[in-house]
């Protein structure tokens, strides 16, 4: 068989930090949103780490990798460094995002459903709803670590904020399901 290992020439690359559908994200609004959600993120990540310590073992050497999780319709991205000794989970304006080892990009509720294994990551990748770049092994380890968590991280997080938290999550899920149909 006569083949070579090249595909037709690909168009020029886009830097991995550029979001597919950039939000207007004016600096001031984005920074305000980051400030507003940060207490929730800090509390959430501490609780998940305390309740699911086994997930760190599956991360292996990527406990110190910087992940940029980019929910495309939100005015900010999320910076995660899953180091059990120095956990970081913070909202960052896209124009101030750190250089990430791996970037995971998709709609917010898709990302949340992936965390909870309500959606399949490979299927989302096949359909092009999920985009990854950077260190693929880091992304695979994070996916597998989260997939071994029993229960729903989203519901645990919502429950931290009582009835209003659960109501907001239920409403987001309904909207996501309606959009997906």
């Amino acid at each position: 068989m006569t083949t070579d290992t090249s595909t037709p020439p690909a168009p020029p690359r886009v830097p991995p930090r550029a979001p597919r559908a950039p939000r207007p994200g004016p600096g001031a609004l984005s920074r305000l949103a980051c400030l507003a959600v940060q207490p929730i993120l800090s509390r959430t990540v501490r609780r998940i780490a305390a309740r699911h310590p086994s997930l760190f073992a599956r991360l292996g050497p990527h406990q110190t990798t910087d992940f940029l999780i980019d929910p495309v319709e939100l005015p900010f991205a999320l910076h995660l460094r899953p180091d059990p000794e120095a956990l970081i989970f913070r909202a960052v304006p896209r124009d101030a995002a750190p250089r990430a080892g791996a970037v995971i990009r998709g709609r917010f509720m898709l990302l949340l459903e992936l965390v909870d294994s309500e959606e399949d990551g490979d299927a989302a990748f096949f359909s092009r709803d999920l985009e990854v770049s950077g260190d693929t092994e880091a992304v695979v380890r994070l996916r597998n670590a989260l997939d071994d968590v029993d229960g729903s991280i989203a519901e645990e997080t919502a429950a931290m904020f009582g009835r209003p938290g659960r109501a907001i999550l239920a409403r987001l899920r309904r909207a996501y399901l309606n959009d997906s149909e």
Partner: protein
Amino acid sequence: MSLAELICPAGTPAALRTAVDAGADAVYCGFQDATNARNFPGLNFTPDELAASVAYAHAKGAKVLLALNTYPPAGKVDLWRQAADTGARLGVDAFIVADMGVADYIARTHPAVRLHLSVQAAASSPEAIRYYCENFGVRRVVLPRILTIPEIRQIRAEIPCEIETFIFGNHGLMVEGRCSLTNYLTGQSTNMDGVCSPASDVDYARHADGSMSSQLAGFTIDCFGPDEKAGYPTICKGRYTAPHRPEGYYAFEEPVSLNLSRLLPELIDAGVHAFKIEGRQRSKSYVRGVVRAFRKAVDDIRAGREANMADLVALTEGQKQTQGAFETKKWR
């Protein structure tokens, strides 16, 4: 009628519990090392996790099959022997093996534990299968995905062991267990290291027009248009240019998944004992959805009802599915 056991994948303990709860008759899994063909980062079981998982499965009436389905490099067989010893100590119900040396060790050392011949052994003739049965006491063969149903029926009549066939999931390169494409590019072996397209060598790049290219070890193996469905970054599913196909074409395989949901009654009638679902690298969501769908289908067929399968195309590679060689040899 055969028992039509449902054999389901698990890459983590949580996935194993999900599979059992969704109706698996047996779950197959592997250790976190080169002894199994899904040696992917962050996947698989520690011995402690396997012990707890065996207990969980057995408590719910399900079996656990341990995949030791890679080939030990010369002089490095101890890892496979230790894995077999650990599996036997933890009470797994069967080993899935490909290598004759591993099969021989288990047959001699743990004769009470069933041996299943992995698809990685690529045993597709009655003579080959009988050889494994007579020499190592193999009780079940997982057939390569290259046979039609009439051929499976004929093989069944000529072998002394059970038959297991894949019914859903990745549709891999023929001849299974002999693929050296990943090794050629990355230096790591699918068959000896258990890694097909190791994630550490995979790179995805998005381009200004919305297209996405996938690379393995620096070689571009596909470029998906902005609205095109994607596949796994494996060389066998890559799209290449050639002098006679300058537009690019799938030289080996296409990004497509096997789905035999419509052929289940015929497979049962042909004497297939067990149905295997591929996908230890997939999520709990995949395991839950696929196992539930096939559990219901098999139960419907057993009860004499027509199986009304859920649509699983969203979970297939490239969102395309095929009945492959099971339907016709002309499938590709």
